[in-house]
């Protein structure tokens, strides 16, 4: 039996996986020091200002924190003078902090799972966190030059972060968030997306790839099928969060071998009040049947292990294990994989 990591590599490379990869079982998400100077909010925390000056709130019972954009809390008051408002936080951290985190990377059994550094938000998300989403989307048309400059500024910051991460922590995988669309459309046209984000992400993902990172997993739980050629060009190896609205079987046929798709199990299909094991299993069976185990990893769409309603994530995991036993005759003992990580 292959280890979870070996199996995931076979899936991505179009080799001979011996079963379905079970969600995030082969990806251990790990941190970098900036996450401690601008921490992710915990459920129930309200109006917390992060290191970029963005105010966030995490109401109980929702999947994640949201930026608060009442007029007084929008960071960029005037896009033409964005430099007056946007001040990149420092990325200088004491060696002890890097060392403490490095120990966590070293503690992960690299035979079992990828050591993935978690980076969020991405470039597009950061622009709308700073400007407010309606404003940001309009600025991409009305203030093209300023938005190019802002994206460049954010890219330079991300590259500095990447340098610190790669030289101190040596992850073999990057798990990078940036939501590029809604349920059935991208936020912007592929042409506009390429104009603003293709080169910046080529730089960022190119840096990681050339500094010891084997896999770039990009999270966007959205429709983004029309952006897949750009994702490939950027150097994304796995698109996590791929929703069913993208027609995953079609994407696998078209792009399998160049990129893999991780998702298919949308929160709205399984993760709701009154959820049941039976429904989770039915969704898992349908999605796995449709997509197969080459270039596809069945996974909850949200950008990290867990679910909004406690129990849903493990219910999906159990259903995938059950399917692996039925379909491939492989019973995965818990001792053969790392303990389940549940972050959300």
């Amino acid at each position, binding site marked *: 039996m292959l280890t979870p990591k070996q199996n995931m590599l076979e899936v991505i490379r179009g080799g001979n996986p011996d079963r379905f990869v079970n969600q995030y079982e082969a990806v251990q998400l790990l941190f970098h020091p900036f996450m401690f100077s601008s921490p992710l909010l915990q459920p129930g925390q309200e109006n917390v200002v992060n290191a970029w000056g963005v105010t966030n709130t995490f109401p109980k019972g*929702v999947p994640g924190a949201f930026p608060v954009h009442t007029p007084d809390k929008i960071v960029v008051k005037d896009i033409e003078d964005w430099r007056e408002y946007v001040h990149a936080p420092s990325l200088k951290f004491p060696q002890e902090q890097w060392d403490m985190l490095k120990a966590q990377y070293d503690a992960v059994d690299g035979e079992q799972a990828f050591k993935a550094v978690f980076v969020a938000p991405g470039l597009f998300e950061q622009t709308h966190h700073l400007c407010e989403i309606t404003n940001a*989307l309009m600025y991409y048309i*009305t203030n093209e030059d300023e938005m190019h400059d802002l994206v460049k500024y954010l890219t330079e910051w991300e590259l500095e972060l990447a340098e610190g991460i790669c030289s101190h922590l040596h992850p073999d995988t990057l798990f990078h968030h940036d939501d590029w669309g809604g349920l059935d459309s991208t936020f912007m046209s592929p042409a*506009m997306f390429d104009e603003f984000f293709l080169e910046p992400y080529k730089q960022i993902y190119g840096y990681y790839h050339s500094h010891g990172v084997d896999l770039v997993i990009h999270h966007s739980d959205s429709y983004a099928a029309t952006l897949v050629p750009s994702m490939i060009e950027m150097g994304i190896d796995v698109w996590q969060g791929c929703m069913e609205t993208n027609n995953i079987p079609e994407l696998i046929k078209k792009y399998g071998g160049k990129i893999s798709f991780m998702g298919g199990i949308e929160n709205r299909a399984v993760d709701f009040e009154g959820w049941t094991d039976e429904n989770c299993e039915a969704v898992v069976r349908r999605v796995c049947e449709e997509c197969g185990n080459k270039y596809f990893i069945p996974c909850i769409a949200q950008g990290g292990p867990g679910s909004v309603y406690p129990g849903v994530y493990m219910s999906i995991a159990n259903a995938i294990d059950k399917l692996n036993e039925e379909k491939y005759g492989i019973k995965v003992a818990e001792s053969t994989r790392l303990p389940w990580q549940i972050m959300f």
Partner: protein
Amino acid sequence: MSKIDEVAALVEKGKAKLVGAAVQAALDEGADPVTILNEGMIKTMGIVGDKFKNGEIFVPEMLVAARAMKKGVEVLKPHLASGSTGALGKVIIATVAGDLHDIGKNLVAMMIESAGFEVIDLGVDVSAAKVLEAYKENPDTKIIALSALLTTTMPALKDTVAAINESEFRDKVKVMVGGAPITQEFADEIGADGYSDDAASAASLAKKLVAA
């Protein structure tokens, strides 16, 4: 190209800085203000909505078109009889309690406003009590439009619609709902009058609901 066509072209392209002057030019030439509004703007936003629905344009293009129309209406307003710009009636719109998503709700608000309604936007994370209160302050409201983008806030949407359904004014107002996890079946189940799956369809639905 007539002056009204120029207004229409500028609205469609989202040229907010130029549209005011084009509206003024059309007025100076003697064009009827109501025709400028209906032909130059509302009809154009209908076209913009269709293009969005068909995937020919995306959210940014739709937003700048709506903003351009708003600029044009500012110039036009003094020349219109009171109430002409919101002639189809008032719509109260909100994202329900616990849900901070605003882009979908904002798009719907813009498209509904562009279709000729007056929009009262209550914002995000709005309780059922606040929705009822807003209606009581605006008893001539024709539609209450509610959005939920999370499976976790679907119960809040259900509760808000239930509160409206139990109110004494239920027969005077239509309720429409939307958001990523919402379906026609869910809308029917909770007792809403209408559901739409995108902003352009929401504007058409609103017109249909008030005509019914």
